[in-house]
């Protein structure tokens, strides 16, 4: 087949990229080779627009065993235990086919984690939808939630935390980010780098079908009105097979058979074989006749580009095939030697005893395009919102508006559809600042949280990037965990647009600054560009997934008030920043202005001081102050508790809206035994930590003197109302 400009374009390649391919090959590629280039050179696989910026992120630290570049990141939690984790997007497929898109997102991220030798112990997700009243939102939401649950519940990994947000920026392009966390022995971690010549390359798992062909290319382009036609590019998940594959791989990993292992994710057999060869500076030869196929008459092109799920590629040590095959036979999975490693540094594809394609590995990997795309700094709107001009509303009404809004309402109707308890190590599940998972058979645990702040990032990407790292860090601190490292999923619009590229560059700069300052390195992640339809881009939405360590697990700490008449302290300074706040958004539909400032020095100091108090067992409950400000946080501590709070009126003559709804950062609320107050004040002062004594817990009622009084039961009802009527 003659390669025409039209065929090149259909493969998502630019004409200048095609010229480059010809130069690298010193000839024209054939159709199969073109398909392979398109799979490797698309944005999703090559990170061609983001690599320049990603390099700046801090990725090292004493706690880091493996940073970005492998299937997932690995951190050290002591005693020969390692935690392996990563987050990944499945936005485009989930918009086209929500159930399968979300399900295979979960399946894919799980494979990334167990490929490295970890048994997955927790799943998390961050899902963003358009406005609730948008005609597509409800069915997308139901599909995505069922898909996430369908996969995680069946494979038997608890889905322990997540966030669900609504914003009309996602009307035509939802976000589905899935994170998996696994536990491995530090001395039993498996990597994808091939080693040694003439080693067997083994295909294991499901058979290859025609599903998902060009999935990665689809994820590297904007949507238009014909997006529905892309349904055949969405993969179909089979969690049952993945469960078998996981058990078989973990069984094989017990001895020393595996040289390297790589899951077949985006761009399937192509990217897995190229990545293994590229990392090992070797060649790889595949006999495509041997690939187990689900359908008849599949061509080499289809076999190489299929994104059928639940498949792995393994390079085995000599003489280990027989034993390895026994394991996969036991689990009724295909196990076929389909090729070998070579010294040619080429990807060689044979079919019917003919060489159908041959490409230098470097041309596909290290010579993939790299763009330093043009970008511009965000123009900051320094509007000041005149509070005096706003219509007066009662504090109570403003609070109710926030608590009953789609974004703030209780999400247990979602999380109750996920098995959060299977594996019997879930100490604290969704609904807290962070979830806590015990390390099996040990008395230590990890805390995990996933967070995003698209509104802040849109208003000022640099500060938004910083803020979201800090919020994630705070969430781990509040449950008593020492934050160790993050994974990030960077969801942005079209990188060819210089404003969007600017949002990306500045968000990343913010993430970098915060991670560096907090010693909170990035160990894995994923970039998803081209989130938008017909030139309308989504808000910049970096999602941060953090992991922290609780060295000695005792009764888990959460945000619910625990006792009557205990003292409630606010740690951190309140300035009353209302721009970009929920208060203005939910009550006045005002979206203008700057996000709150982030002072990294205060973040670090306040967080570390609170950890000290928690370690000394002086904290009964704790909660971070985020969206909705102080009063929203306090109401959340009362919802689901028998105890409410009597809040003292602020002494200074401040504006009550600013005091109660301001979204200033670096703040925590803690409940303490009143007779420990002196001891705690001393520690706070020694650590130069600003605090205020803001109230006393009481039975049943949430109250501000002469301002409002609501029973905690009513707060619960208000917070659970929205979904019932949806």
């Amino acid at each position, binding site marked *: 087949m003659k390669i025409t400009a039209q065929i090149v374009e259909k493969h998502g390649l630019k004409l200048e990229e095609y010229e480059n391919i010809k130069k690298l090959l010193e000839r024209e590629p054939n159709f199969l080779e073109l398909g392979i280039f398109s799979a490797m050179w698309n944005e999703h696989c090559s990170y061609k627009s983001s690599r320049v910026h990603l390099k700046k992120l801090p990725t090292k630290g004493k706690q880091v065993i493996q940073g970005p570049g492998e299937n997932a990141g690995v951190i050290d939690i002591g005693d020969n235990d390692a935690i392996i984790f990563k987050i990944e997007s499945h936005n485009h497929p989930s918009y086209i086919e929500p159930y399968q898109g979300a399900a295979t997102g979960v399946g894919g991220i799980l494979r990334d984690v167990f490929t490295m030798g970890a048994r997955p112990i927790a799943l998390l997700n961050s899902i963003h939808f358009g406005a609730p009243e948008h005609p597509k939102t409800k069915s997308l939401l139901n599909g995505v939630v069922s898909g996430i649950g369908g996969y995680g519940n*069946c494979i038997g990994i608890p889905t322990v935390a997540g966030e669900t947000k609504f914003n009309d920026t996602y009307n035509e392009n939802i976000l589905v980010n899935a994170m998996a966390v696994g536990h491995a022995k530090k001395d039993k971690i498996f990597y994808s780098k091939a080693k040694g010549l003439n080693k067997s390359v083994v295909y294991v798992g499901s058979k290859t079908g025609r599903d998902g062909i060009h999935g990665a290319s689809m994820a590297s382009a904007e949507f238009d009105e014909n997006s529905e036609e892309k349904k055949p590019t969405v993969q179909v998940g089979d969690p049952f097979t993945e469960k078998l594959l996981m058990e078989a791989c973990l069984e094989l990993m017990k001895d020393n058979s595996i040289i390297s292992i790589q899951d077949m994710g985006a761009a399937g057999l192509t990217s897995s074989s190229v990545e293994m060869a590229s990392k090992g500076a070797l060649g790889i030869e595949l006999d495509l006749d041997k690939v187990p196929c689900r359908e008849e008459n599949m061509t080499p092109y289809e076999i190489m580009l299929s994104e059928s799920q639940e498949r792995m590629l393994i390079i085995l040590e000599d003489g280990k095939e027989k034993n390895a095959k026994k394991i996969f036979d036991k689990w009724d999975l295909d196990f076929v030697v389909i090729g070998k490693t070579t010294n040619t540094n080429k990807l060689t594809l044979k079919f019917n005893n003919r060489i159908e394609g041959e490409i230098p590995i470097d041309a596909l990997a290290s010579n993939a395009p790299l763009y330093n795309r043009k970008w511009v700094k965000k123009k900051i709107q320094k509007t000041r919102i005149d509070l005096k001009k706003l219509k007066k509303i009662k504090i109570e009404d403003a609070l109710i508006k926030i608590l009953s809004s789609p974004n703030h309402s209780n999400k247990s109707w979602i999380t109750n559809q996920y*098995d959060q308890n299977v594996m019997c190590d879930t100490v604290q599940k969704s609904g807290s600042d962070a979830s806590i998972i015990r390390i099996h058979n040990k008395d230590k645990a990890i805390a995990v949280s996933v967070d995003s702040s698209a509104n802040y990032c849109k208003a000022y990407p640099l500060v938004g990037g910083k803020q979201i790292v800090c919020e994630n860090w705070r969430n781990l601190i509040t449950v008593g965990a020492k934050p160790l490292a993050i994974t990030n999923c960077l969801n942005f619009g079209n990188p060819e647009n210089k404003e969007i590229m600017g949002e990306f560059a500045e968000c990343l700069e913010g993430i970098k600054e915060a991670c560096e300052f907090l010693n909170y390195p990035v160990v894995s992640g994923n970039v998803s560009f081209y989130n938008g339809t017909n030139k309308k881009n989504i808000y910049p939405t970096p999602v941060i997934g953090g992991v922290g360590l609780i060295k000695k697990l005792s009764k888990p700490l959460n945000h619910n008030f625990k006792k009557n008449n205990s003292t409630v302290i606010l740690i951190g300074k309140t300035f009353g920043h209302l721009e970009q706040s929920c208060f203005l958004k939910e009550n006045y539909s005002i979206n203008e202005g700057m996000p709150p400032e982030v002072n990294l020095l205060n973040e670090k100091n306040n967080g570390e001081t609170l950890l000290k108090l928690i370690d000394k067992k002086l904290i009964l409950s704790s909660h971070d102050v985020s969206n909705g400000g102080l009063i929203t946080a306090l109401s959340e501590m009362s919802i689901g508790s028998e105890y409410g709070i009597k809040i003292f009126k602020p002494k200074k003559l401040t504006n009550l809206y600013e005091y109660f709804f301001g979204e200033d950062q670096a703040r925590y609320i803690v409940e303490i035994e009143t007779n420990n107050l002196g001891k705690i004040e001393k520690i706070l002062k020694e650590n130069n930590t600003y605090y205020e004594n803001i109230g006393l817990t009481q039975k049943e009622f949430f109250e501000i003197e002469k301002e409002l009084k609501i029973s905690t039961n009513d707060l619960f009802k208000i917070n659970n109302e929205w979904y019932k009527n949806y």
Partner: protein
Amino acid sequence: MRSSVIVFPGSNCDRDIAIALEKMQFKNQMVWHKETKLPKSDLVVLPGGFSYGDYLRSGAIAGKSLIIDEVVKAANSGCLILGICNGFQILTETGLLKGTLLRNKNLKFINKDVHIKVMNNNTKFSNKYKNNQLLKINIAHNEGNYFTDPKHLDELNKEGLIAFKYCDEKGNINNGTNPNGSLENIAGILNLKKNILGMMPHPERMIDDIISNKDGINLFSSLLN
């Protein structure tokens, strides 16, 4: 006491139940579904999960697996059989327990802690509980909506074969305290000989205060009694 946990492809609570049994001092063995002989056991457990992916119908394929003939034989000779969640579904598929488990009435997977009431403590599985005792226990299923014919329901009631019913924290049994639409709020049933118990809630998840509570422990200590 010797126990065997049957492992089907897709079982995912097999490890959890094994840990609970070992913690309670059972001498436990894991038995792979392709085995054709059951080791000597006083108790056989069919664990929760998605055996064979729950394809076709939950529990249907497991009900036809190689090992299941042995389980049926053991059951008929009086061995104690406990089916939890997917295990309960498998028991109804094999005919060891009558009735069936339909999709939850809200058509959604449900995972939460619910309350159940002990309806009969005069069994091998429940003698350490008191009658009408309330337990807080975790459920996690898509098809837990128990259904049977009126004649069998009558028998269940008359013979004391209803082991547990869903209720609220005060013990009220009604539509409002029924999480999945189960007939008469049934959460678990016994066969006529009372040596087989099938239940949707997960007692193995309730043996540890740090994770949840210890309301499930007495089910295992009843068996040891």
